């Protein structure tokens, strides 16, 4: 789908759609994998994630996203590092 200067990259997992709006010059395939990696993070964090996990723990989904992406850019691509940080935060 193309709207003005933004492209939408989306991926479907069962009944959930994850969408990213990216700029004209951005790389579509890597964006697809950003979605994939985020879902993997959710999966690892919640232990085989499902829609209900995200609804009931919506704030957690936000926190994970904040660790992974910030201001629209990838911050940390290592799954281990993200989860390690989340864990350490929860212990404080």
């Amino acid at each position, binding site marked *: 789908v*193309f709207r003005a*200067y933004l492209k939408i990259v989306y991926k479907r997992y069962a009944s959930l759609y994850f969408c990213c709006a990216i700029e*004209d*010059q951005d*790389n*579509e*395939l*890597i964006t*697809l*994998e*950003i979605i*994939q*990696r985020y879902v993997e993070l959710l999966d*690892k*964090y*919640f*232990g085989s994630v499902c829609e209900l*996990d995200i*609804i*009931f*723990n*919506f*704030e*957690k989904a*936000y*926190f994970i996203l*904040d660790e992974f992406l*910030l*201001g*629209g*850019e*990838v*911050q*940390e*691509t*290592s*799954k*281990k*590092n993200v*989860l390690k*940080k989340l864990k*350490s*935060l*929860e212990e*404080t």
Partner: protein
Amino acid sequence: MPAVSKGDGMRGLAVFISDIRNCKSKEAEVKRINKELANIRSKFKGDKALDGYSKKKYVCKLLFIFLLGHDIDFGHMEAVNLLSSNKYTEKQIGYLFISVLVNSTSELIRLINNGVKNDLTSRNPTFMCLALHCIANVGSREMGEAFAADIPRILVAGDSMDSVKQSAALCLLRLYKASPDLVPMGEWTARVVHLLNDQHMGVVTAAVSLITCLCKKNPDDFKTCVSLAVSRLSRIVSSASTDLQDYTYYFVPAPWLSVKLLRLLQCYAPPEDAAVKGRLVECLETVLNKAQEPPKSKKVQHSNAKNAVLFETISLIIHYDSEPNLLVRACNQLGQFLQHRETNLRYLALESMCTLASSEFSHEAVKTHIDTVINALKTERDVSVRQRAADLLYAMCDRSNAKQIVSEMLRYLETADYAIREEIVLKVAILAEKYAVDYSWYVDTILNLIRIAGDYVSEEVWYRVLQIVTNRDDVQGYAAKTVFEALQAPACHENMVKVGGYILGEFGNLIAGDPRSSPPVQFSLLHSKFHLCSVATRALLLSTYIKFINLFPETKATIQAVLRAGSQLRNADVELQQRAVEYLTLSSIASTDVLATVLEEMPPFPERESSILAKLKRKKGPGAAGTLDDGRREPGPGGDVNGGMEPAPSSGSTPSPSADLLGLRAAPAPTATPAPTGAGSLLVDVFSDSPTGGPPSLGPTPEEAFLSELEPPAPESPMALSADQAPAADTAAEDPGVPIPEADELLNKFVCKNNGVLFENALLQIGVKSEFRQNLGRMYLFYGNKTSVQFQNFCPTVSHPGDLQTQLVVQTKRVPGQVDGGAQVQQVLNIECLRDFLTPPLLTVRFRYGGAAQALTLKLPVTINKFFQPTEMAAQDFFQRWKQLSLPQQEAQKIFQANHPMDSEVTKAKLLGFGSALLDNVDPNPENYVGAGIVQTKALQVGCLLRLEPNAQAQMYRLTLRTSKESVSRHLCELLAEQF
């Protein structure tokens, strides 16, 4: 890893969420939410101080309600309080609420900034990260002002934790994107570049994004990043898949970082240092080689990540456009993808190849894939992929394959999706013109276009074919024959009738020798279509008929009979009626010679950029067209020739008001104009969108004769323009004087009318007669001496106060210095509106009467609405445009007392006189008046919509103007409000 421990969950929240999920209906949900809102409100207002946990829980509930789409207007204060909590989870919820919900509400932002500042300076990395995330998520200017100076310090401080550096880098990036002026450059920039060398891959990942953005604005400051990026990239690309541990993604080493590094390198030219360059080329080759290796995993994640890096590599190769070897390899790689089973890859390959096609090194290599691309056009299931295929065909087209590509595109057009038909039509038209070796092929192609997709053939396309046929005499006979044949079809598209009518009118004589296309046959063929056509086409056909009378005298009687028929002479459409009347008279009274001169063949059109190209560019936006036409654009005047809004409707709607101008018809136009050029009325039809581009036109209709003299490029215009410059120069030196007190009132009388007495006193009467069309106007001023004594040193001058000099050009002709008693002198003013203006020009009249010097300054009745052209539109269009102009500054509104009796007919006449079209059945209230028009100036066109709502009971009006320009809205509103 275990699932989330239930202990830190908020039970109340979970209960609330499942309550909501259990709601059977929307109403039940709203009820449950309102109950919860009331509960939270009472808790927040209650006397008992809430503990951190409760506060967190309620704030979180509010957030959830907001995410369901409800407005939240309280709780901000509690969220801000959470910021100062020492418990991480509480602080976190506070930040989340603020990031999602807070916009820069003034007093709160100060409190929030306070909390953020505390955390930022806390030296607790966890809190610092939260604060940085919040700044990055909000990214407002206020936050930028508060923190932009601190963050670079955190970013480059030696003791910052890695995760803090990462957040700081991206936070700074966000602030820089939002308000670049707030981020101070300084010695930290050099140290940021060195983050590319950081041990921690996450830090590098974040830093590359920041540097890529910064170096776009300051390429020189960051130049050193190129070699660092190359060596980093080289290390990643050559690493074994296990080297980078968790940064390897499905066997691809650090794909995100690689993509970012490749993007960074695309900000710069190829490295000059041979060693660096060698290393980089090696990297790029490695990536291309890896693409040929068997996949290390069957998973789509593996291939996506790998190909993401590959596509970015190809982008860099294309960006450098200097390594023929790499370009060809890239092209071959993309060629493989064209047949890949993944639709995404085929799409991306088509897209990348489009840019490769414009490189001289790879153009030939791209061309070898033509059959695959044509096949894609025919068989792809996704329309967006087919569209890319069409783009690529357009980009790879050159002289050698133009015929094949054009014919394939034409074939595709028959089944193409409606959404992309117009674009395909434009592309075919451009390619056919650009690569036409023989123009008969071009003519065939365009006529085929009209046949296959007539509805999508825009005016630009058929104008262009007329231009080309007119300019190339080798193709005129062929064109005439072909359109004649095309018109034989029982049902042909109206555009075909237009082209046919024009071409036969100009060149029908070239095929008249053949008895099968003798003049009467040609005429009856065209006339058989006449009744099915729209007004514009019928007007064009009428012009063809008058040309036929000239070309083929034997058709004169038949055609005159047609023109004389009641359905023409009394046609309800004023344009058709006028043409019929005038052409009939012209054909009856003008001698053959005169007729031949008036209706001579059209002169060649001046070469200029194809209007179609301009249209395609507009359609695709600047970026896309740039890549498509790169370096292959024909030289020509700028694209503004066809800019503007939709072309103004042909002369149609300006009824000719002045009787003595109509008198011109008695002495037909040629005598009035020394440069007879052909049937100008048609010219105006066809080129009405570019008044300066066309040759000087001469029309048999009075208005056009009137305007043809005004055409700026006409060098032999009957007026000696050079002489006119002198008085204009004089006025600059002379003080125009202060307008007489009643000048404004006099001016107001002329807002809605063009003719009348402008001024009268005991000595002098000044009459005005004026006519305006598009951005041009002509005004006759009649100075009558009411006394019996001669005026001496009589000198009327026009001056432009203030900015008007740049907005309006008024050329005046000199008048005699003496005006005898009882005599009248006439002065002609030619007016050209360059851009919108607010104040009218001043007319100063000086003379000596009986020894006493007299001076008088008036405002010339030239107001912006004179250049207002009515636009008819349907109710739906009107409302759509009305909505589009919904910014507050685009609207001007005035509510005022009626100064005149509220008579609906008078009001209508005034609105029409003002220049707007009156649109019926638009406003649901029939008492209201709705109008639309376009202010035509040389520099720009301003679309205007207006609505006048009378309230007879209160004797008040409400007037609303919406235009795309603030000053125009206001000014028109003021002018018009004075009229009722």
